[in-house]
């Protein structure tokens, strides 16, 4: 397992998203909801170093507001636990759903 893949796994694990096994010849990975297992996206293994963490961090507000993440709401709840003040601000800005 490459360092980049481990970096991607850690970055997404922080917001409640699991990196699945390699799919499609090993270059791309499915992203699954950490709670219900639904596919929420995909990602490739050639991101640059430190890129995965930065991307997920930049998307914090989108998970908080329910603009990204699983319909089951898991990432919304996980991000609330990470930073409640930022979570509230994001939901005020984007009008997050319940």
């Amino acid at each position, binding site marked *: 397992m490459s360092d980049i893949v481990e970096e991607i796994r850690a970055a997404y694990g922080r917001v409640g998203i699991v990196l699945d096994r390699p799919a499609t010849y090993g270059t*791309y990975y499915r992203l699954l909801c950490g709670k219900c297992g639904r596919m929420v996206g*995909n990602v490739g293994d*050639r991101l640059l170093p430190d890129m995965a963490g930065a991307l997920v961090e930049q998307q914090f507000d989108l998970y908080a507001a329910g603009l990204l993440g699983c319909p089951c709401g898991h990432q919304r709840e996980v991000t609330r636990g990470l930073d409640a003040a930022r979570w509230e601000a994001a939901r005020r800005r984007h009008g997050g759903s319940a």
Partner: protein
Amino acid sequence: MNPDHETSVIEDAERRGRTELWPFWRRIYAQGDPLPRFTAPGAPPSYRFDEGEPLPAEYRELLLKMLRHEGERAGNKSFLGLMATCLDLAEAIFPDAESKLLKAEYLAEELKHAIMFHRLAVGLERDFALRDVPYVHYTFHLPRETWADDALFHFLVDLNGAFHARDWRESSYAPLAKMSATVERDEVGHSEMGYHFLQQICGEPRGKALVQHLLGKWYPAALDMFGRSDSKNAPRFIHWGLKSVGNAEIREAYQAYVDRKLVALGLDPPDERKNRRFL
């Protein structure tokens, strides 16, 4: 089956796939040539090579480098893998049945390109035709977690392919010049498909806010795809007639095209230097 018949079978299949929307390039080209023509500095290169002709070593090396980067080849399993991720997304997060069908038309057309580039590769170097070349540029690996991500991927990344294909119309490698108009037209259509999805998503405020936010991820990556402005290879590509312009010039034209379309959606193009990796 002779090659002309093969072509007519594909053309017939494409005709039957036409809808009011698909192919998206129709309406665009009806208004004229959408992409700028690039002109090589100085006198045009006098080189011209066809399939089967001996190629100078540097020419062959640069041509193969360009085709490795392009990637759309039937024998390149990493390309097929990328296409599979598009199907995965279409299954998991498609907004409606029409969008899913449009995505299938897109895939069919990309697979047509894979056949075309396969033929070109076989005519150039048989071993290369079967070589697996994973996409190296990070843009092809960025996470896609929403239909808006996928729309931006098509609008921006397929448009990059269209700009390069436009430049290949004047390519000194005849097989590439022959297929360039089809590839360019189709890639413009794929970009327009992405733009069509963006128009739908930006139709409501939350969608527009999402797209504006995600531009922070896709816009710098799209500009980075053209490579470094001081690339030492670019003058060699131009010398051999494989490209007409350097990375900076083609990026600048691309950016102007993209910015105009983003502004039409009511979006703010991000700072062109923010989050860039290859200036």
